[in-house]
């Protein structure tokens, strides 16, 4: 018996939409909240760029380039929060309350079942805002006569592809974090922990590439938890700081990182499930 994964997914999406729409005021409020946090971040960098013309010497992250980077981050974040954040938290909660039993009994892949049931539509506007920021900054960059920048369909396809890779990596990190609740009993700090980790991928990696601690951070977040490449690679494809586009070893590495983290997260998830012993009764 093979369930249609697409149909199940669409049902999840529809149910979530119905649910969001029944608390409309709350929905609008959540949209407003996430958009305003993003705008505040924007404001911070707008102010920083009043006082400097790039982040890092010779890194090429001038204002327009950097806002393409920022927009890319918003898009990835929005996708993660729309599809996975609530679900990862739900998963931790299921482990704590023991309702994971019911998920295990259903004739469908458990990881799929716990990864998608709740789609948080209110986080979509943030991604659209990110996309607008990317397009707006890209236009400004192309009108800048000093910059040589070439954006064709290939770059856009690669951009979308690498954003996909980024989402895969972030999803894997999140599932691994959530799976730890099986051993830790409860993982209330998932959200906080997530905030602290993502804190490192929000900046161009060049800022870490000096001094010992910086290189250690760069290495950790490139090779152990590969979150730096997922934000930097797609942003570089469009922003092209230093005329360096997608041709870089990191572009190849990002594909590998996405595949590897998916495999590892799958393995951790299965391993965690095998130590699951239900709660109560």
């Amino acid at each position, binding site marked *: 018996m093979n369930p249609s994964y697409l149909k199940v997914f669409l049902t999840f999406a529809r149910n979530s939409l119905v649910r969001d729409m029944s608390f409309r005021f709350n929905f609008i409020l959540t949209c407003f909240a996430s958009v305003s946090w993003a705008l*505040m971040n924007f*404001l911070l960098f707008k102010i*920083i760029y009043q*006082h400097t013309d790039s982040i890092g*010497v010779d890194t090429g992250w001038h204002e327009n380039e950097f806002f393409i980077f920022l927009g890319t981050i918003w898009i990835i974040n929005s996708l993660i929060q729309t599809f996975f954040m609530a679900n990862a938290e739900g998963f931790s909660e299921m482990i704590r309350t023991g309702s994971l039993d019911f998920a295990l009994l259903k004739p469908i892949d458990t990881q799929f079942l716990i990864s998608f049931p709740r789609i948080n539509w209110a986080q979509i506007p943030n991604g659209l805002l990110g996309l607008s920021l990317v397009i707006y900054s890209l236009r400004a960059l192309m009108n800048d006569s000093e910059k040589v920048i070439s954006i064709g369909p290939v770059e856009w396809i690669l951009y979308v592809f690498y954003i996909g890779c980024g989402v895969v990596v972030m999803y894997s990190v999140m599932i691994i974090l959530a799976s730890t609740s099986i051993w830790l009993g409860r993982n209330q700090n998932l959200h906080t922990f997530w905030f*602290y980790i993502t804190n*490192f991928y929000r900046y161009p990696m*060049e*800022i870490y590439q000096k001094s010992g601690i910086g290189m250690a951070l760069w290495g950790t977040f490139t090779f152990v938890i590969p979150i730096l490449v997922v934000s930097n690679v797609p942003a570089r494809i469009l922003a092209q700081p230093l005329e360096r586009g997608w041709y870089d070893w990191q572009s190849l590495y990002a594909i590998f990182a996405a595949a590897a983290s998916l495999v590892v997260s799958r393995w951790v998830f299965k391993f965690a499930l095998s130590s699951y012993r239900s709660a109560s009764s």
Partner: protein
Amino acid sequence: MSQAIPVAEQSLSLMQRARIWWTFFQVAINERLVYRGDFMIGTLMRFLPTLTQIFLWWAIYDVVAQSGSDSIASYRYGDMVAYYLMVTIARAFSSMPGLTSGIANQVRNGEVKKFLIQPIDMQGCLLVQRIAHKLVYYLIATLPFALVFFLCRDFFIDGWPSTEVTIVFFASLILTFLLGFFMESAIGLISFWFLEVTSLTFIYMLMNFLLSGHMFPLELLPESPINVRGFVEFLPFKYLAYFPAAVFLGKVEGPEMYRGLAIEASWVLFFIIISRIMWIRGVKRYSGYGG
């Protein structure tokens, strides 16, 4: 029912009231000590964003240095990092997690009734609890804080400030605690009029984050064409994070510093009065049924 409070409270001597508050204080202390392990790790984690700030500003100051300058709006690189560290301290005093929503919940589910029939003042009791929580927090957080500040000692270019400045700094920290408390409890008390204050709390949080100097020193704000900085300096939010840090780093000095302290004290007084009026008015409006 609302008539009950003033009568009941008057009949208590100062000694008796002090004893009630002491009990609340002890209970709150014990409550907090239970989670001390979680706490220490949580406090250390709190400095992780500072780590990225250090690298971000390093990269920015490298660019600034190229144009022959060593500071942005009077902040050298060390000052900038020290500023973020000091803001963490100020925020440890002024942030009141769960205060607004706690008050709103008590009003909504009727728990607030217990303060109407018992001879205990709600705000007084919340304040005592908050002091207890904060004291435990500082007690436990001292270790991680000391570690981080020791590691970052070189960012404090001018070293420890003079005794005078230190005293003003500590005074501003105590005032920032009171300001945070009374400001947030005033927002919580709005729930006597609107049952749902989540959106208001959110707006407050946003304003706080943006205008208190939590994200960047207020000196970075533009003064022309519109004087944004002047406007932000006029609001009470800057005393929640910016002011204590700026005093410590010598960015506000002399008469300016004392003037700031006096304005901070006036804001505290203002919010004490506002929240008292709101409480008295709110209780008059309030009606509770059943048990």
